[in-house]
C-alpha cells in the first residue's frame, strides 16, 4: 500500500514534469534545433589594409579591388607653388580574390617606380561561437622591384643588375576581434633586400607591427598602426612607421584617410626606409588617402 502511494506520487511528479516541458515556449524548442555549423567572425578589419599595412582580411572569390593609394607631403622651405602639396606618391593596384582564402594583387607606385606583386592566404579564421580558433591568421608574401633611383636621398641598394633592385617581404598576420567594435593585429615581418650599397646595412630585416581598429558607428572606424624595426638600416637614419587614420566603409567604396610619416606603400619601402619621424613639420607630415572600389565579378554566390 505504501509502495503504491509512492508510485502515485512518482507518477504525479512525472506528469508535472512532462507538463512543464510542454509549456516551454516554442522558441526555446527551436533554440535546440539549430545545427552545429561553425560561425566565423566577419569584418575583423573590413578593409584589406588596416591603414598603411595589410590586415588579415581578404576579399571573397571573384571580387576585384581597384585601389588608388595616395600620399601627400610638403618639401621643407620650398619656394615653388605646387598645387595642394609639394610631393605626391600614388600606388595604383588591382587585387583579385582567386578563392575565398587566396588573394593576388599587383600595383605600381610613382615614387621610385616601385612595381609590386603579392599573394595573401587566409590560414585560420576566428570562430565567433567560442569554439575553434580564437584568432585569425593570414600569410602574406610580396616581391617588389625598384625601377628608379631614390634621388636626392642615398640609394640603399645597388642598381647594377635586375636582381639588385628586388626586395621581398613575408608577414604572418595574427588578429583577433575582441568585441564587435575592437580588433587588434600583430604582424611579425621579415624583409629581405637582394642587395645593399653599404656593407654595414643588413640585407635581412625583422620587424613587428601592431595595429588596431575601433568601430565608431555603422560605417566609420578609427585605426592606428605602428611598425617597430628590430635591426634598422645603419647608413641612413630611418624611423618606425606610424599611422593614425579613419576608415569609411560604404557600399562598394572604402575610403581610408591617414596621418602618417610613411611615403611609400610597399612593405619593404615603408617599414624599413621611412626617412622621417612622425610630427607635423613640413617634410615629415604625410597625409594619406586610399580609395578602394570593390567590383564583384562573380555575382553567383554558392548556395550553402
Amino acid at each position, binding site marked *: *500500500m505504501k509502495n*503504491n502511494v509512492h*508510485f*502515485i506520487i512518482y*507518477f504525479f511528479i*512525472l*506528469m508535472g514534469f*512532462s507538463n512543464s516541458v*510542454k509549456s516551454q*515556449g*516554442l*522558441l526555446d*524548442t*527551436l*533554440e535546440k*534545433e*539549430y*545545427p552545429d555549423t561553425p*560561425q566565423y567572425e*566577419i*569584418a575583423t578589419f*573590413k578593409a584589406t589594409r588596416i591603414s598603411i599595412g595589410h590586415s588579415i582580411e581578404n*576579399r*571573397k*572569390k571573384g*571580387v576585384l579591388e581597384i585601389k588608388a593609394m595616395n600620399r601627400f607631403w610638403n618639401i621643407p622651405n620650398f619656394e615653388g607653388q605646387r598645387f595642394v602639396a609639394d610631393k605626391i606618391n600614388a600606388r595604383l593596384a588591382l587585387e583579385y580574390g582567386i578563392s575565398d582564402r587566396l588573394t593576388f594583387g599587383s600595383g605600381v607606385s610613382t615614387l621610385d617606380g616601385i612595381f609590386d606583386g603579392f599573394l595573401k592566404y587566409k590560414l585560420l579564421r576566428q570562430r*565567433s561561437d567560442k569554439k575553434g580558433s580564437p584568432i585569425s591568421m593570414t600569410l602574406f608574401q610580396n616581391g617588389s622591384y625598384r625601377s628608379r633611383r631614390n634621388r636626392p636621398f642615398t640609394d640603399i641598394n645597388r642598381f647594377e643588375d635586375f636582381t639588385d633592385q628586388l626586395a621581398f617581404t613575408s608577414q604572418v598576420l595574427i588578429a583577433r576581434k575582441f568585441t*564587435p567594435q575592437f580588433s587588434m593585429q600583430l604582424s611579425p615581418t621579415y624583409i629581405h633586400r637582394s642587395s645593399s650599397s653599404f656593407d654595414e646595412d643588413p640585407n635581412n630585416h625583422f620587424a613587428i607591427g601592431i595595429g588596431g581598429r575601433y568601430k565608431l*558607428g*555603422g*560605417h566609420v572606424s578609427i585605426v592606428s598602426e605602428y611598425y617597430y624595426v628590430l635591426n634598422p638600416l645603419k647608413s641612413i637614419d630611418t624611423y618606425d612607421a606610424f599611422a593614425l587614420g579613419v576608415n569609411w*566603409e*560604404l*557600399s*562598394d567604396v572604402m575610403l581610408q584617410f591617414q596621418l602618417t610619416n610613411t611615403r611609400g606603400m610597399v612593405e619593404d619601402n615603408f617599414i624599413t626606409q621611412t626617412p622621417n619621424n612622425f610630427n607635423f613639420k613640413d617634410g615629415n607630415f604625410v597625409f594619406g588617402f586610399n580609395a578602394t572600389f*570593390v567590383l*564583384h565579378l562573380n*555575382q*553567383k*554566390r554558392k*548556395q*550553402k
Partner: protein
Amino acid sequence: MNKVIILIFLLINFADFETKPDQFIARQGQISFFSYTSVENIEAKNNQVLSIIDLSKNEIAISMLMNAFIFKKSLMHEHFNESYIESDLHPKATFEGKIKDFDPLMDGVQTRMIAGELTIHGITKEVEIKATIENTEGKYLFTGDFEVAVKDFDIKIPPILAPNIAKNISITFRFEYQPYEK
C-alpha cells in the same frame, strides 16, 4: 488500488500520444528579402530558417540566424551583418505568434492571418501576416509575403545611401512542416 495506478499510467500514456503529433517543424524554411529602388536592387535569401507550429494551441514560432542570409555580392553580406543588422549583438531574428481561425484538419488551401511579435535587430514589433496554408496528407506548407519598414527596427542608413535602400523591405517566406520528433 492497482487498477487506479494502471488507469493513471494509461492516462499519461494517452495524453502523451495525443500531444506528440501536435507539433510540426520546418528545418529548412526559406526567407528572402528584397529592396527595390531605382538606384539598386538588393536581394538576399536564407535557406536555414527554423520554424515550429503547435496545432493544439495554433501557435507558431520562427527563428533564424541573420548571418545565414546569402547575397549576390559578398561585401554586401559583410555590410549587412556588420553595419546594418549588427549580427554580433543581435544574431537572430525571431517571430512568435498565433494562427487565427486555423483548422488543422481541413484539407487543401486556406488563407489565415498570423498575429504575433516580430523581433529583428533586438527590437520587437506587433505584426499581422497573411499566410497561405496548404494541408496535404498531414504535412503543412506555409507561404506568403509581407513588408517591414526599416525605421521600425532602428536600422540606421547613412543619408548618402538613403536612395539605395528601400524604406519598406518586402519579405517572402516558405515553410514545409513535418511531424516533430524530439
